[in-house]
């Protein structure tokens, strides 16, 4: 599969709907299930109170980010962790070069991590002669297929059971009608051997507690616990925005993230990692590296509206509720982070020119802001990027032309009335399809027929 970029969004989304209708079915079903679980999980708790707490704690952490990062780094080093600071993806990846060479690493087992997708860790490992093995079942499936994840929590939700049966039959020799338990057992056996053989375990980090230097990881399969416990070396890539001030704050974030993502009280396995094994421990990695990654995050932090997106805990609730995401799944967005989340962070992290037209991949319905556990004002940030795009001359030409034409007309009452009348009497369904600007828009939409009388006319005649 060829990798698309955000600028391909219009074509990629149309292609997904036209060529792979099963993606829409699978994604729709999975996201509705995720969302139903979320609704049920929050019906039993004081959701509003804890959303406020989570928002305020993250905002506090971001406005003191320099202090907390320095504190976390000092704590980690005191526990014998090698701390690396990476301004770019290249900086982050170079940490692996030294580790791979010094330990003679041949294969690496990975826990699911969106940051390692963003950095393209797997491709880099291959250039070093290291075989990367994704161990989360969903990530394993898409790695076999050579595809990127399509959802930040369920990376393979765009694949149906039959897709998986065919894939496992081909690659692991399971029967074509195998049940999910048989398929999972085959993957478990294949991956268990990899866990025991790998010299390196790679993970991301859901949170980093500043006062103890603890890396917190949430999962359900146990593969992250294995990847961070069995190999002799563990490298964790952690975005600098993952900081929370205190170890005890993890109590709130572990629970609100699990309830928002899958409707669980907590992930079935949580790892709280402080460093390499101590003398009183019989196993666990002997060497731990933590790579603190910027790669565009400080650029996003510098934006006075969009910086609030850095509160994100990557639960995926905004993807699950989004009527636009549900149609195409994540691949159409052309970047690691898709859905409403991807649309608000990509312009800040990649630059607006590379991220367009993702801020337009939304109807601004606002469902996302209602489900966000850290109250990120997603529609406001989408509008902010659209305005910036107009200022920078990056908005779709039709929209820029339309806005300017409207502004011109609105300043001239006689012209405004004339244009108004013209629009009401134009056979615009036919005319619209002939126009380059409206053609694409009208292919997917219908609109009510305009009234024959204008509002101004009705006002003059007296509205009841």
């Amino acid at each position, binding site marked *: 599969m060829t990798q698309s970029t955000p600028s391909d969004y219009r074509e990629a989304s149309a292609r997904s709907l036209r060529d792979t209708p099963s993606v829409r079915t*699978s994604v729709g079903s999975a996201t509705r*299930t995720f969302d139903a679980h979320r609704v049920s999980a929050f019906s039993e708790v*004081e959701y509003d109170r804890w959303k406020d707490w989570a928002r305020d*704690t993250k905002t*506090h952490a971001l*406005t003191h980010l320099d202090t907390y*990062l320095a504190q976390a*780094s000092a704590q980690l080093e005191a*526990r014998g962790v090698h701390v690396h*600071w*990476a*301004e770019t993806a290249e*900086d982050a990846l170079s940490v692996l070069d030294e580790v791979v060479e010094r330990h003679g690493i041949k294969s690496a087992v990975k826990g699911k991590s969106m940051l390692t997708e963003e950095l393209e860790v797997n491709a880099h490992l291959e250039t070093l002669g290291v075989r990367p093995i994704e161990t*989360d*079942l969903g990530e394993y499936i898409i790695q076999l297929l050579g595809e990127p994840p399509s959802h930040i929590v*369920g*990376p*393979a939700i765009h694949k149906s*059971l*039959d*897709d998986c049966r065919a894939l496992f039959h081909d690659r692991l020799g399971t029967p074509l009608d195998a049940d*999910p*338990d048989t398929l*999972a057992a085959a993957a*478990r056996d294949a*991956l268990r051997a990899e*866990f025991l053989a790998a010299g390196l375990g790679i993970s991301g980090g859901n949170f980093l507690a500043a006062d*103890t230097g603890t890396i917190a990881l949430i999962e*359900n*399969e*146990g*593969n992250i*616990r*294995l990847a961070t*416990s069995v190999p002799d070396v563990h490298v964790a890539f952690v975005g600098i925005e993952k900081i929370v*001030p205190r*170890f*005890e704050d*993890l*109590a*709130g974030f*572990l*629970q609100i993230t699990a309830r928002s993502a899958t409707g669980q*009280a*907590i992930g079935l*396995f*949580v*790892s*709280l*990692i*402080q460093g390499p*094994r*101590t003398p009183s*421990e019989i*196993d666990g990695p002997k060497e731990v590296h933590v790579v*603190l990654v*910027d790669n565009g995050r*400080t650029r996003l*932090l510098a934006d006075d509206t969009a*910086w609030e997106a850095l509160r994100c805990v990557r639960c995926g609730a905004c993807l699950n509720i989004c009527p636009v995401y549900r149609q195409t799944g994540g691949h159409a967005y052309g970047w690691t982070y898709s859905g409403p989340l991807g649309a608000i962070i990509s312009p800040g992290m990649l630059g607006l020119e590379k991220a367009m037209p993702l801020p337009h991949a939304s109807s601004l319905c606002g469902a996302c802001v209602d489900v966000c556990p850290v109250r990120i004002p997603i529609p406001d940030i989408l509008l902010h990027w659209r305005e910036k795009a107009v200022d920078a001359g990056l908005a779709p030409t039709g929209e820029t032309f339309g806005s300017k034409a409207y502004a011109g007309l609105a300043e001239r009452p006689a012209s405004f009335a004339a244009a108004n009348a013209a629009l009401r009497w134009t056979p615009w369904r036919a005319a619209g399809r002939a126009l380059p600007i409206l053609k694409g828009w009208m292919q997917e939409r219908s609109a009510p027929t305009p009234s024959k009388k204008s509002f101004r006319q009705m006002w003059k005649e007296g509205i009841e």
Partner: protein
Amino acid sequence: MSTKRDAILARIRDANSGRTPTDHPGDFGGWRGDAGPATPLQAFVSGFEGVGGEVVFVDSEVKASQWLADFAKPFTSVTIGEGVSSALRPDLPIALPRNAPLAISQARGAIAETGSLVMDARDGRRTQLLTPTHVVVLSPENIWETVRGALLTLADDLPAAIGLHSGPSKSADIGQVMVKGVHGPGRILALIIGCAPEKP
């Protein structure tokens, strides 16, 4: 390295300049506000069983040893956590965690709020993770009401890693169908040495 660190911290300070620093909102209590009628032990059992964990009550270490001897019969070997009392070891050959079908670990405690067992790295991480069946010994006096309460205590004595295990390993990544025992143990039992509580 330090130059990159300095550059990142400088960019953060620059981005935050002109932004009013906000206060930490204070403590995260517990999800439900109050524990309700359930005792911490009752709440733990209900949460743990609710996601597929199994709970066994025995009223003494002798009974625990008898229960384990009986439970271990179908297994060919066992791996045992460092903190497990020698009185509890069943009469089975000891195997490496990677080869054993059964593990017995000692929990550092449990959390009522989320139905979680608190596993300490000093007990042995491979034993906690590699076998298909995992029996975890738990003393009922070591049950915290909330995750926050547990973390506050744990912070005073942190090993290299803590694991919170809240049920059998699961995944719904294959066609959104739930399967058990994907990587971690597919069967997990809390063996609680103490009196069974009444149902709340």
